[in-house]
């Protein structure tokens, strides 16, 4: 049994300069492991969306990546406003982004749907006023 590879990243809310760093670093990790480029791209897109959700809405969050020989699992835990209606948030095009976020090219309402679309397992839990946990897995083969 191989010990899974784990790495964690701290994501700061409203820090748009560093946004995308975790996604980029995870890509580099997966490339060193020889993971197929289409799998890497799915992970990159999903991770980036999850990262952006923290940057846009939460105070801060932690992203953990776990790689086993079969799966890539990402867990993103944030301290933020939480999502009152998850069902609605999962709908394509639904967004609570402010005008300012939209000006920056975000808030198309594709964040969570994109994560779900690009992963093989997807789970979300949220408590209003406390925060949100998004967990998704991409299969390597």
């Amino acid at each position, binding site marked *: 049994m191989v010990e899974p590879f784990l790495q964690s990243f701290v994501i700061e809310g409203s820090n748009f300069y560093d946004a995308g760093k975790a996604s980029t670093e995870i890509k580099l990790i997966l490339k060193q492991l*020889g993971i197929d480029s289409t799998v890497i791209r799915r992970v990159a897109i999903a991770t980036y969306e999850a990262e952006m959700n923290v940057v846009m809405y939460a105070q801060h969050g932690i992203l953990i990546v776990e790689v086993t020989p079969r799966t890539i699992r990402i867990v993103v835990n944030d301290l933020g406003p939480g999502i009152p209606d998850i069902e609605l948030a999962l709908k394509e095009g639904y967004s609570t982004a402010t005008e300012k976020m939209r000006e920056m*090219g975000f808030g198309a309402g594709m964040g969570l749907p994109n994560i779900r679309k690009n992963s093989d397992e997807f789970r979300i839990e949220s408590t209003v006023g406390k925060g949100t946990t998004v967990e998704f897995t991409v299969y390597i083969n």
Partner: protein
Amino acid sequence: MGCMRVCPTQAIRIRESKAFLLRDRCIGCGECVRVCTNHAVMPVTSSFSDFSKFKYTVAIPSPVFYSQFGKGILPARLLGALKKIGFDDSYDVACASEAVSIAIQEYLDSNQGPRPLISPFCPTIVRLIQMRFPSLLDHLIPIESPMEIAAREAKHLKMKELGLKEHDIGVIYLTPCPAKMLSIKSPPRKKHSFVDGTIAISEIHPTLIQILSHSDNSNGEAEIRGLGLGWPILGGQLASLKAEDCLAIGGLTDVIRIFDDIENGKLKDIQYIECHSCPTGCVGGSLTVENSYIARGRVLRLVERFGSEPCQAREKIRKLYQKNFFSLPGRIPSIPLRPLDQNVSKAIQKLHQKQQLYESLPKIDCGACGSPTCLTFAEDVVKHRATADDCIFVAMKDFESMSFDLLEKVGSHSRKIRRTLEPDKA
């Protein structure tokens, strides 16, 4: 050691005071050529004697060439001067650049596919995508480079005119950078290039300066015109297009950042990105002579005087485009970086080892071990290209603990001796 530090893909190692290139990591950008003060890094160009096998030679200078001489020296005169230094003929590439611009426009207007599309004319960028961003290979526009179009045209023209066979005519590209040589030697898509050899602009420059000082301005040839004259500078391609929502990006750091963004699913509303490995565009190539900003100024002046109108009919180019005159068949293969191990489980184990070693390193990227950064050093150790005590900090720690053991031993020994000599005090 400058070369090792400056290499954007960490492809250079120093072993026993000599630089070595890890070929599978090199993207041919030429930064090492630029910074080497010992002239140890020499790009492989052709020599004039290589061309003796051809019955007829044609020089096709990169349009960058036009910006490397004094103010009043215009392209037509330069093309004439090339015929005085041993080439049988010379042929302008800027005209092909213009045709390619029109072809890009056609492609953008008629193709749905992934966005943003990426310009494929800087060979370093293509190689970067092949190695680090294979998922973006579909974004490269499948259109032939002006260099190849011009070489093909020059050959066909001379075959018809002189009744020669294709292999009798040698087409020599005067290049601003080593990357172009790479693309001629092994074109990413097709079997062979129409270009038969390359000579660095910097190599041919002194000879031309001499010739030009002996010849006068009036040579009666028509001046080179057209939208292609602006191609050598960053943004020059875009200026010749009519497309909206386009970007021009120069310099590998910024290009890599943009490619990361595209891989993350951003920038989908951008149509086309002109990418250059050199921050100022091709005028900044490492085999040029003139300061790239001065060269840029000269290109802008040329464009102002001769480059505002196309030199060929759009309709003609459009028809050629429809006949696949510009299209590049075939897929560009990816060149994946070699993983830590072919087996994922083993690769994960090695990644653990790498991380563990990295944590014990000083993380100051001093380079004394011969690897450019502590992280690449950790990888080199895991890949058996180096041993941990090549790091002087690791070696010092080893030495410290070794000498500590030794001192301990000496100490306990001397205590024993003391005890035997002075039994009362013990």
